[in-house]
Each structure stands twice: as structure tokens, then as C-alpha cells.
């Protein structure tokens, strides 16, 4: 499994801005692991996979696109299987076949639980509501606040003559 650390801050920021803009903050938490109920977990996994593959199309840098591609490729097979099973499950009207599909979904999750959990958890990083400060509007540091004095002491030494 690809580690989330392959993305740098800038890349995470770019993916994050896509994710946060496309999906309202009220819906995002429901995508995470709130339940281990197989159907809900499958739906969350499918939705997250779709968001990430959608983000790939909107990223400017080619290198980031490649990283996203690598990141989602680890679960591509699982997604293909679960997506098909989920569609079949939703489509069928017979209780017995529903039950059979549900069992298959459960088995698929059981077989790939680590991958699915890892994928959903790492999505947290991209979906986190980042409160960035605009470089274009920050003019300085307030020195009448303790936090400001701390920050000033740290950066003042970094000025190169």
C-alpha cells in the first residue's frame, strides 16, 4: 500500500481544495468509518474511490496525477469487485439474491479489510478542512500577543544578511 507521505504539503493542499470544494463539509464525515456495517462501509469506500479518481482529472501537476494514480491503483481491483456487487445488490428485487450478494460483499470486505481501512483512513488527510492563511494578506506578526512574540523569535534568526 502506498503511504500517504508520498504527497507533499502543496500536493495535499491541491487535492484538498478539490475535495472540500466538491463535497460539502456536512456530507464528508459520513464517508468515514462511522460504522462497520458492510453495506455502509462499501458505499463509503466506493464514494471515496470515486472522489479520488475525480480529483486526478483536476490536478495541474503531472507528478501529482501520477501519485494519485498510484495511490488509488492499490485498491482498484477491490473497488471493481465491490462496485459490481453493490450494483447487483441494489438492483435485485429478490430477498434471497440480496442475501447472497450481501454475503459476497461481506466476504470481499473480509478479504481486503486492511486495504479498505487504510484507503478510507488516509482519505482523512485530503478531506481535512485546512485553514490556510493567505500569503497575499498576511503583513506581519502581532507582538502584543505571546504567540506572536514566540513566532518572531523563531523567524528573526532566519533572516540572512
Amino acid at each position, binding site marked *: 500500500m502506498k503511504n500517504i507521505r508520498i504527497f507533499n504539503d502543496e500536493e495535499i493542499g491541491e487535492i484538498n481544495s478539490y475535495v472540500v470544494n466538491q463535497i460539502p463539509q456536512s456530507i464528508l464525515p459520513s464517508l468515514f468509518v462511522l460504522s462497520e456495517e458492510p453495506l455502509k462501509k462499501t458505499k463509503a469506500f466506493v464514494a471515496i474511490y470515486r472522489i479520488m479518481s475525480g480529483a486526478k482529472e483536476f490536478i495541474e501537476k503531472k507528478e501529482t496525477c501520477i501519485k494519485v494514480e498510484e495511490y488509488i491503483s492499490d485498491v482498484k481491483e477491490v473497488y471493481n469487485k465491490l462496485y459490481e456487487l453493490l450494483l447487483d445488490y441494489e438492483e435485485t428485487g429478490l430477498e434471497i439474491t440480496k442475501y447472497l450478494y450481501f454475503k459476497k460483499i461481506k466476504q470481499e470486505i473480509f478479504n481486503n479489510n486492511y486495504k479498505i481501512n487504510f484507503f478510507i483512513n488516509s482519505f482523512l488527510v485530503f478531506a481535512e478542512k485546512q485553514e490556510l492563511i493567505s*500569503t497575499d494578506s*498576511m503583513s506581519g506578526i*502581532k507582538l502584543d500577543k505571546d504567540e506572536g512574540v514566540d513566532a518572531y523569535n*523563531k523567524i528573526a534568526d532566519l533572516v540572512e544578511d
Partner: protein
Amino acid sequence: MIFGNGLRKVKKSNPIKQAVLQTPPDLTGAIFVYGRIKSGKTVSILSLAGLYHDNPNRKYKIIDFWGGSRNEHLYWGLPSNQNKYWNYVKKYFRLDKEGPRQYKVTYYYPLIGKKMEKKKLPFNPPNVTSKIFTIPIRDIESKDLALEIGQVPDNINGIWKDILSDSKKTTTSLEILEEFQKKSRKGNVLYNAVLKPLIKCGFLQGDSSELNLTQKDISKILDDQEEISVICLDFVDEEHKLFVIGYLLRKICQELDRKRRKVIGVFRESSEFFRVGDQSVAPDRIKVMKAYLSDWIRMGRRGLHLLLDTQSPSETRGIVDGQQDLTLLGRLPSEADRKMATDQLYRDGFMTKKQVTQLGAMNPGQFMFCPSGKNSYYAYILLPKCRYWQEKNGNFYKNVWEKEVGRWINFKEEIQRVLEPKSFDKTINSKPLNHQEYVENIVQDNKIRKEKIISGKDDQVFMNHIGVMPEEFNLQEEKQTNIKNEELIIETKNEEIDPFEVEIPYT
């Protein structure tokens, strides 16, 4: 907020965000920065101007008028080299973008004689370019002439107005000079010290000059908010500098009266003008400049906001009181200076005793912000996103631009066309190019040249664009340059270096 049953809702705020100082509000007047030497005044001026330019809610046009004796205005064209500093600031405050920034900059150089033919000026498309300009003589008013010789006597003023009213669009500057000579007394100071040298060097032109900076051009400059316009008076004689600035400021004010824009005019080391008293021995033109500056400072509501720095508040006594929007007080070790700067604020309850004491021991970049009619606060201004003058720099052209960018533009042909239009027409019978076409041609030629160098062919395509370096940095020495393409090594020995051959990447 208090809820029922004594429960209190506590909202946790981000402490780092609370320490961030945002851009000061929109301006209605000027900004004054006071502080002793090494208090970081000029660097902070650059930072503040940059912020008013970058902030999407401000979007001010920046015109840098006065770089002071250290030519600090030239540094707009390079991004900051304080990478360690900005990386840390970005990470610590979680900034959304990188700090160092390559601004779109145009350097405007007045045409001061044939010597400009040889000058190579900074050029780094698409962001940095240089332009040469002249001014139409028929646009000059006696107000402008006062910045050369002090107040213009009434009789000379009358003669000047007569000559201009009799002149036509086709009248050349030489014809106006002849007319003035006929009408004025022999040895007239305006003729000898101003008109003759400025017309001779080509700076004052008839209306038809292609290099004229017309009202339309000024309007375009003001409309292009993204571009930072830098007036470069490096090659202009000391006695003519104020005349150039005065003329430009007057035209800008005229344009702002026609259509309002938000403009910041940067003036460094303005104490040079403000220190001058009426009884001092300074030239009259500086006294006139002081009076004009006071007027321009009051023009804030038209849209022109001056950003000035000076060492002591006593220098601006009676000039800016009540006209400034924002006053920044840096380190003021002198008791008298501190008293003058803070007495009123303290009495009005906008500053505390502790804040007054802090003024005695501030580090570079630390300032007491005193917004008009509001409480003062103590803050540190971040470094500018562009480069700024540092002691190690010395000559900008030689030590900074040549080493880090090394690309130049030369206006030999345009200057020849303006200074010797007839002889030039005989030798080259071509339609003059406008500036944009000229720059595009050079960029295109540059590509061809590089391709030819790589393929091993020699050609002289670029010889027309090669200028000679200013005397102070003669590059006619042995030099070996490795081009990025490792296969190719250009060796030049006792030859002029083609500035467009070699690209020195800078970060």
C-alpha cells in the same frame, strides 16, 4: 455565550491565527514610516507596498518613484532570496502560497542623451522589461520648471506660456528652444540650465516622438494594476531628477482626476526633501519639491497614496499632521523624537506609556502601528516577497542582475531614430517597431540564436541588440561560460558578451 443551567460554550480559537497581522485597511491618505537608521524602514515600505498590491481585497497599483541613493527601487524585479525564512514562515503560519514572488515589473528610464544608446537595461521576459521614455515639451508647465530652478519668475512664465500657445503639434523641441532664446534675455537660467541641456539630450521632444510618455500611456500604466512601474533615475543628472518625478506625478494626478484608481507611490529617503527648511542653503528645487510633496500627500482621496519614510518626526512637522492614514514608528532612541511622535497619541488615549517606552528599543522590522483615530499596536512586518537592498549588494546591475539573470535589452535603434531621425532614415528605411513588437522580436531571435549555437553555426543576428555595459561594469574580460546544456561550452576571449546567449537561472 451562556446557555441554560450555567453551561458556557467555549470556542477554541487558533492561537497562531490570532498572532497574524492582516493587511492594513484601504487607504485614504498617506503612510509614513519613521525610524532611525537600520530600523528596517525601507524594507518595510517594500513589504507594505507589495501587500497592498497582492491582497485581492486591496489591489493597488504600485509606482516606485524614488529609490534613494542606493537605487533600492531596482530590486522589485527579483524574487526574495530569503528562502529559509519564507519556508519557515509558510510552514509555521500554514500559508497557502510560497512567499518569494516574481513580480511583473517595468523599469522606465528617461532618455538622457546618446549615452543611453550604450546602456544595457534589465530584461527578463515575460516578467521584467525596461522602457525608455521622453516627454513632450508642449506638456510642460511652469510648475514643472520650478523643480529645476525654483519658482519661475512671472516674465519667464509669460514667455513660456506664449511660446506654447503659439506652437503646433508639429513644432519640434528645437524650434521651441530657438523661440525661447529669441524672446528671453541672454544668459537666462531656464534656457541654459534646463531647456538647452534637456532638449540637447533628447529628453524633451516634440509631440511626434515615438518615445513620448503621453497621457494615454500614463493611463495605460495606471490601468495595468499587475505591473509594478519603477521610475529609474539612475542615469539622470542630480539636478533634473525632481523635474522628471514632478512631471510624472502631475500627469498621474491629472489622470486620476479623470478616472479614479488606487495607486501607491513609493518614496524612499524622503527626509532628503523634508529636512530642508526655508532658510537652508539647499537648492530651491528641493524646497519646491517639499511644498509639492505636501500637496501630493493631501491628494490621497484622489487615489494617489504616498508611502514615505523618514528618520525623525521633526522633519515632517506641520506637513503631514492629520493627512496620514497610517503612521509606523520604528526605533526612535531620541527622547525628543519619541515625544514629538507620541505626545498627541498618548493624550488622545491611542497609545499607552508602555508602548511609548517600547519605541526606544525595537529590532529591525518591528513597528508601532498608529492608524489614524485608532489604538496603536505593536507588530513585526514580514520581509518583502521581492528582493531588497542588502549591504553586500553594491551595484545592482553588476553584482545582482548580471550574476543572477544576465539578460539585457538595449534601445540603440529607437534612440537613434529619436535623436537623429534624418540620418537614421537614410541608413535604415524601415517602419519603426512599437515596444511590444521589439520585445517579441528579441525573444524570437533569442530562440533562433540558441538553436544555432547548439547546432554549431555562427551568425551575427544579435549584434544589433548588443549594447556595451555601463562604464562601471566593463565585462570585456576573459570569461568562460558553461551553458546548461552540458555538451556546449562557449568560450569568449576579449569579446563583448552577448547577454542573450547565456541564461543564468536564478531562484
